[in-house]
């Protein structure tokens, strides 16, 4: 264990909060919103890996891998949707896409 577990947790918390801020602030650009989600997921991965290291179990790393696979699936779909929506509306502003309300 190179550093106290607590420090890793604090780092992950900071990273998560930054991702959250990114998601909440960038409503004018859906690309930035997706980047915020990536940051949050990375924070979660850091947590898993740190836990795996702390308890000496491989399970945490396995879940980090799962997150990674899931993220790639999510990103590919999300970006495909961004392309599709941009083709329809010529904008990436999140609040423009509110048709589901009706």
């Amino acid at each position, binding site marked *: 264990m190179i550093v106290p577990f607590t420090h890793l947790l604090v780092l992950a918390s900071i990273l998560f909060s930054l991702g*959250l801020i990114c*998601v*909440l602030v960038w*409503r004018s650009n859906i690309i930035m919103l997706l980047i915020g989600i990536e940051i949050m997921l990375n924070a979660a991965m850091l947590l898993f890996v740190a836990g795996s290291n702390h308890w000496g179990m491989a399970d945490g790393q396995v879940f980090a891998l799962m997150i990674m696979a899931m993220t790639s699936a999510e990103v590919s779909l999300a970006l495909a949707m961004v392309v599709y929506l941009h083709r329809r509306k010529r904008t990436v502003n*999140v*609040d423009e*896409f*509110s*048709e*589901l*309300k*009706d």
Partner: protein
Amino acid sequence: MKTALELIILLPFLGAIVNILLGRALPRRMVELTACAVVWGSFIAALSAAVSYSTPTVVYAGSWLSSFNLSAPFSLYIDPLSLSLCLMITFVCGLIHLYSIGYMADDPCYVRFFALLNLFVGAMLVLVLAENLPLLYLGWEGVGFCSYALIGFWYKEAKNATAGRKAFIVTRIGDVGLAIAIVWMFQHFGTLSITQLNQSGLQAPTEVVTAMGFLLLLGAMGKSAQAPLMVWLPDAMAGPTPVSAQIHAATMVTAGVYLLMRMFPLIGHSPDVAAAIAVTGAFTAFYGATCALVERDLKRILAFSTISQIGYMTLAVGCGAITAATFHLIVHAFFKALLFLAAGCVITAMHHEQDIFRMGGLRRTLPATFWPFLAGALCLAGIPPTGGFFSKDGILAAAWEQGGMLYSTLYAVGLITAFLTAIYSFRMMFIVFGDRLSSKEEHHPAVTNVPAIMTFMLIPLAILGLIGGLLNIPANLGNGLLDSFLAALNAEGSHLKSITELALQGTASLVALGGVFTAWLRYGGKRRQECISRAEQEPSPLVGFLRAGWYFDRLYRFLFIRPFEWLSAILWERVDEGVIDDNLDRMATLLGRTGQLLGGLGNGRVSAYLLSMAAGAALIIAWFAWVMP
């Protein structure tokens, strides 16, 4: 025996079901044939049951209500009382069914009519044959429903529908009493079987039996139109005449008396109840007779006479003379059915004119109706030696036999009523059938032909009414058939000395003949015309009082209906519209506004959703961090 009993009940129901389900598809003759055939089949079944009858039997036909220690199976009880009533009901109703074919010949709703008529008979037979009180109550309510539907048969006129409703509601008051009595009996005795209840009278304190007896009396008052619940019966004339005949003669109104007779071994333990029954009966008899004296409507005269005659039966039950009550019930069924059916012929012939003062001279034009009607009137008036004389005499003798101040008074009332009965029945005869002396004859519509089947039905009833007395001739003239048949029911029997009885009979016949003579003095011959012209003038206060049925209707309107309407108006306008509806409206408005407010949150903007989700997450995490240490 069992099959016969089951058939008695099932056949009318079968007819009703067939007519309800298939009646529209069948030709008219088939419907009429079915309706009549099932009732006559029922009569044959009753006859075979009577032939093979030996001792009172309980027949178990199937289970019905059964849970814990409550059990009310479909079990039928056959004893002399129910057997004689069954024979009478099926026979009289069979005649009435045949008569209806003629009477309803022009009516398009004949399917409904015959189905209901069959159902009526079936319900009454259930009532009569029931071995336990819930089954009796089933028949009781079935009879009530059918009477409601048949009185309001021509429901397109508001007056008829109202009469049906009135009958239903007024009898309902009595039904409540009966229902309470049934539940109370089960609570107290732990059984609902009539035979067991009748044996357990001594197990209960007299006060309890008295209270139960009063509740049963209330039920009987409603069903049998006894004072003070008699107001529905005159209005029930709105129905077709065969229905009136069936209600008055065979089925509905006798149910109350039957209930009292059936339960008398139990409630007779309380002298108070017996006295109350007797007083009710005597008062009702007097009331009906006085009202019938001045009534102008032919059918309403008969209705009031029914009230009066049922009062006699109730009086007999109150005197403990079950045989006399049964005897009068049966004879009354014959002659009252006869009178009603004959009145139906008259009304048909007069183009549905029911005012007796517009009739007249029918003796010549309708001889086939006149003679049976005369027989009926003789029975009703109690002229010896018709059946009506013997049965009424039996009742008066029973009241005399009881002795004491109360029963002597009741005997006197009964005698006065017999006098009045003779007057009004012959007033009816003289005015309806008497020769017309006026020159305005051509103003009256010509008499139309009456279907032969209608007049033909009068003959057997007339014969039975006239010779009905042979069923139970008094002890001094021989042994009564019914008396020995029903001996098990009233153990007391007749203790009167032959000479006393003869004296009583003499008094009764003198009174009846005096009544007929009085009627002739007032209405016979030439005086008929004066009477009619006098009727056109303003009626005197006494006549007005009697004609309005002693203002009972008005009294009830004032006592019950007005306050009820007033209360309803308050509940409707103030409570329902003012409080409940208003509150609901306000609540709905509030909810609608809240919904719109909340709906504004769902504005479709992803950023707003994300923000609120983050806020929720922050709240949860902050809760864990600070509030839940």
